[in-house]
């Protein structure tokens, strides 16, 4: 499947993501202008006030965007998943170039011109609007250009917190290890940045020639107004009730999110918004509790230890009972398990396992000191992760385990960058890349039964959802899950199509 074909088959979605992307950039840049230009004026007038503000903006600029999203998520009003948090972050980033260029533009005006303006009896406001701002405009536009191009890139990362935009393709492509999907998002982002840069550069040049000023301003204003209205119309959600389905950012979760979404659409007849590829357990849980997401699939062991901070338990029924009660206390209904247990699998390369006659984790202890391990950062942090595993099986590796992105870990193992990794037992790539799970012969890993979680208020409003999702209970076994994962990961098929075929076969 090449990129053009992907766009053809996903035309509506691509257009929607593109409009979201443009909309986020446009709204955040306009908001940043309304804040940044006055601050820039203050900075030029009163360095004692403006200096610290500009310094604060510089500090914000140095915070990596994912970290900034992380800071913002728990905040009331500003935080939560979705476009709001992304906009706050984008506005904060856009402030610095705007403050800098506005104050630089004002300070570079010929003092004789300002003296003339004063001597003619202009008030401070008249001087600002009739003389200073028009003269600083080309410089300010240069700042807007920097902020806009920067914003086009930053919006990409905002997909991790469910803000939408073309970053969704990039994340989806990363989780599916499918470069076509990555390109389907990355190419338009790059083009968008080039176009935005070019257009604003033209405006900037035109504005520095006074003769072309008035018409340029009119054309630019009309064009951006038209763009804003168009994007607004495209982004505005169609009316009617909608259920928001979330998922974490790896293939199985995207497939499960799609599965819940299609089941709700098909069996309950309720429209669904998909917020797939959210950046992990923490973000999904927070989104569910905050009401930004109505439904997502969690794993029982993850809920028990990572969310509710309870000690690890190996009794599947007891774990389900414990988290059902705790979720109920939080106003969240846990539905019946889907039917598969996605436990951790410690994986090695098939050929290596055969050569070393390795099949269980107990046997790994003897070889581990000469091996390099690679784990996702979640596995290293979690109580039921690496530390307990190492203690149970007496594992010590050559070096501390390398921290790797979950989406790259299978490939890293297959390519020999590491010798052993912790992956998902249902990962489709296990078969595709000829990897082999080692048996958990001491039963260290707790159960990770996949369970749909629904906000209780949502169920009260749409009781038909419970019925729709019950039809999935016990119907998705490990084999079915691995086949769907492989169809997406290995065969690069569209999750929506794979899920539709699965639902047809039920």
């Amino acid at each position, binding site marked *: 499947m090449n990129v053009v074909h992907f766009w053809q088959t996903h035309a509506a979605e691509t257009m929607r993501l593109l409009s979201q992307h443009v909309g986020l950039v446009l709204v955040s840049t306009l908001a940043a202008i309304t804040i940044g230009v006055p601050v820039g004026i203050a900075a030029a007038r009163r360095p004692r006030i403006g200096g610290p503000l500009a310094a604060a903006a510089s500090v914000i600029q140095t915070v990596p965007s994912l970290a900034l999203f992380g800071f913002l998520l728990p905040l009331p009003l500003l935080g939560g998943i979705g476009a709001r948090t992304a906009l706050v972050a984008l506005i904060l980033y856009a402030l610095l170039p705007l403050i800098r260029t506005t104050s630089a533009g004002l300070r570079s005006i*010929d003092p*004789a*011109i*300002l*003296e*003339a*303006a*004063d*001597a*003619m*009896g*202009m*008030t401070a406001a*008249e001087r600002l609007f*009739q*003389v200073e701002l*028009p*003269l600083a405009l080309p410089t300010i536009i240069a700042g807007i250009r920097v902020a806009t191009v920067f914003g086009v890139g930053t919006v990409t990362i905002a997909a991790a917190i469910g803000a939408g935009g073309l970053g969704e393709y990039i994340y989806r492509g990363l989780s599916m290890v499918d470069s076509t999907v990555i390109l389907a998002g990355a190419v338009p982002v790059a083009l968008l940045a080039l176009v935005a840069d070019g257009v604003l550069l033209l405006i900037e040049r035109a504005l520095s020639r*006074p*003769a072309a*000023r008035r018409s340029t301003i009119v054309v630019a204003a009309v064009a951006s107004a038209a763009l804003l209205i168009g994007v607004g119309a495209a982004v505005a959600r169609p009316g009617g009730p909608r259920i928001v389905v979330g998922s974490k950012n790896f293939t199985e979760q995207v497939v499960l999110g799609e599965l819940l979404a299609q089941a709700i659409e098909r069996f309950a007849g309720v429209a669904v918004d998909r917020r797939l590829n959210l950046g992990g357990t923490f973000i999904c849980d927070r989104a569910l509790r905050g009401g930004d997401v109505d439904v997502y699939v969690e794993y029982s062991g993850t809920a028990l230890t990572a969310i509710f901070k309870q000690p690890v338990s190996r009794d599947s029924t007891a774990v389900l009972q414990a988290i059902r009660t705790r979720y109920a206390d939080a106003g969240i209904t846990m539905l019946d398990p889907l039917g598969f247990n996605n436990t951790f699998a410690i994986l090695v390369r098939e050929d290596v396992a055969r050569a070393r006659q390795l099949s269980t984790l107990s046997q790994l202890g003897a070889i581990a000191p000469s091996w390099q391990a690679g784990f996702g950062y979640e596995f290293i942090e979690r109580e039921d992760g690496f530390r307990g595993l190492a203690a149970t099986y007496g594992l010590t590796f050559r070096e501390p385990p390398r921290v790797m992105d979950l989406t790259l870990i299978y490939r890293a193992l297959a390519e020999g960058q590491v010798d052993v990794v912790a992956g998902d037992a249902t990962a489709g790539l296990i078969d595709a890349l000829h990897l082999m799970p080692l048996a958990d012969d001491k039963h260290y890993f707790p159960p990770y039964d996949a369970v749909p979680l629904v906000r209780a208020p949502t169920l009260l409003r749409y009781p038909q959802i419970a019925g729709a999702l019950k039809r999935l209970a016990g119907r998705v076994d490990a084999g079915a899950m691995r086949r769907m994962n492989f169809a997406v990961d290995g065969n690069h098929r569209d999750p929506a199509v794979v899920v539709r075929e699965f639902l047809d076969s039920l």
Partner: protein
Amino acid sequence: MLRGLSLCIADGETVALVGRSGAGKSTALKLINRMLEPDAGQVLVDGRDTQSWDTTALRRRTGYMLQEVGLFPHMTVARNIGVVPLLLKWDAERILARTRELLDLVGLPAERFMARWPNQLSGGQRQRVGVARALAADPPIVLMDEPFGALDPVTRSELHDVIRRIQSAIRKTMVLVTHDMREAFVLADRIGVLQDGRLVACDTPAALNRSDHPEVRALLDASTR
């Protein structure tokens, strides 16, 4: 900066303030439209202390020209001339008529120059527009801070003619700052000589010519050399 300066300028009179750099000429000029405020003493305009004037109103009825002209580069010649009338909320027709009249007065054909931009003008043309702009709202007082210092001698003498023509057509109270005694002789009814912030002489050109004050002589000698 200025000490013991006492000077009375009559309506319709043109007074030149002459002196070396740093003598306090510009300072004295800027006290008149409150671009600077006096630490002590009084400045009266129309018999009223400038401290009791509204600064904006005072400046709008005081034309002002400086050596760098300070034309607004983002406005056409016509818009530049119309700045103060627009601030005074004249209607568009009246501003247009006034602009044509003034361009005519300073010797720039209105049709050719109205729509031009300052960067399309020569230095002399810019200064003519500056004169027109200073006169736009028909202010009773016009202040000129070394307005022709940066021009070549031919252009300067052309502009002197323009100012003299204006003086004979519409009597304005003019205060001119210059370090060029010849310019003062050409344009002024009276000449005040400033030295280190003090007014050392103030008289008609003819009387000043006979003065034996060393600073006056020095300035006169410099201009005839």
